[in-house]
């Protein structure tokens, strides 16, 4: 085998292994962007003409939850496919990360219940807080994880999500849903494009 052939074979094997062992893909990110745009957009449509603000309607929530369920199922399926046959330290680490995300989300919604009990308005509890707090917490967790793994495109996207969520709070309880729908969709589309570009470049 000539050196040039060896270099080509090595690059091909590395590219194939990275792709096959990594569940993330531009397509999955594209799906996430669609879920965010349509799901949060549906909530915005359900609250935009409420005066006074009462919060998302059951129909709006049903659309959002259905889309989130589809997203979760596709991620689990892709993850199972990619991690089939893999064992070791990263498996335990991923489980711990899942626990951290789950606990953080539960804490966000427990805090939301406390806000409602303390008499905070529906506009704060079921509007601004309901969407910005989970996005800020998830974005911050994801940014920390990405920094540890030196995944800089993901890190940049996670930080952008945190900034979009924080900034969207100024749009008020109705506008916050639309601002996050568009802002997060743009961030996820940019991430998907960066993934596609990196895959071609490697």
């Amino acid at each position, binding site marked *: 085998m000539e050196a*040039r052939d060896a270099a080509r074979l090595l690059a091909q094997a590395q590219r194939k292994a990275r792709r096959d062992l990594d569940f993330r893909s531009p397509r999955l990110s594209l799906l996430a962007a669609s879920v965010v745009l349509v799901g949060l957009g549906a909530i915005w449509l359900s609250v935009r003409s409420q005066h006074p603000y009462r919060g998302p309607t059951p129909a709006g929530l049903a659309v959002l939850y259905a889309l989130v369920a589809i997203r979760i199922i596709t991620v689990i399926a892709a993850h199972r496919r990619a991690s089939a046959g893999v064992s070791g330290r990263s498996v335990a680490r991923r489980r711990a990360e899942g626990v951290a995300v789950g606990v953080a989300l539960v804490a966000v919604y427990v805090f939301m219940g406390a806000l409602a009990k303390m008499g905070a308005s529906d506009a704060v509890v079921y509007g601004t807080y309901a969407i910005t707090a989970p996005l800020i917490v998830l974005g911050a967790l994801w940014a920390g994880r990405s920094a540890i793994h030196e995944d800089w495109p993901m890190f940049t996207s996670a930080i952008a999500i945190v900034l979009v969520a924080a900034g969207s709070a100024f749009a008020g309880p109705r506008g916050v849903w639309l601002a996050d729908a568009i802002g997060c969709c743009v961030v996820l589309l940019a991430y998907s494009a960066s993934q596609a570009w990196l895959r071609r470049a490697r």
Partner: protein
Amino acid sequence: MAPDVLDPLIHVPARLQIMATLAALPDGDALSFTRLQDLIGLTPGNLITHLRKLEDADYLASEKTGSGPASRTSVALTQRGRAALNTYTETLRGMLNGI
């Protein structure tokens, strides 16, 4: 160009693929024999032969868990194997830059 300076243990298409595939895993992770076979596309007999050569050189470690039909063999690169692949890659890069 005769690549005599390249590690002859790695400089074989099937073994180069095995090493590159295992190196894509995070440090401390292992891959099952069947998944490795699926990723590389070698026959079981061929794969076992190459794995044995790499294991004899301490480039990879294998572990068998369970027994009978439920048994599972996992393979992982050792530190020595990772270092050998890095050296191989650097040598290859140097050779190609020199052309």
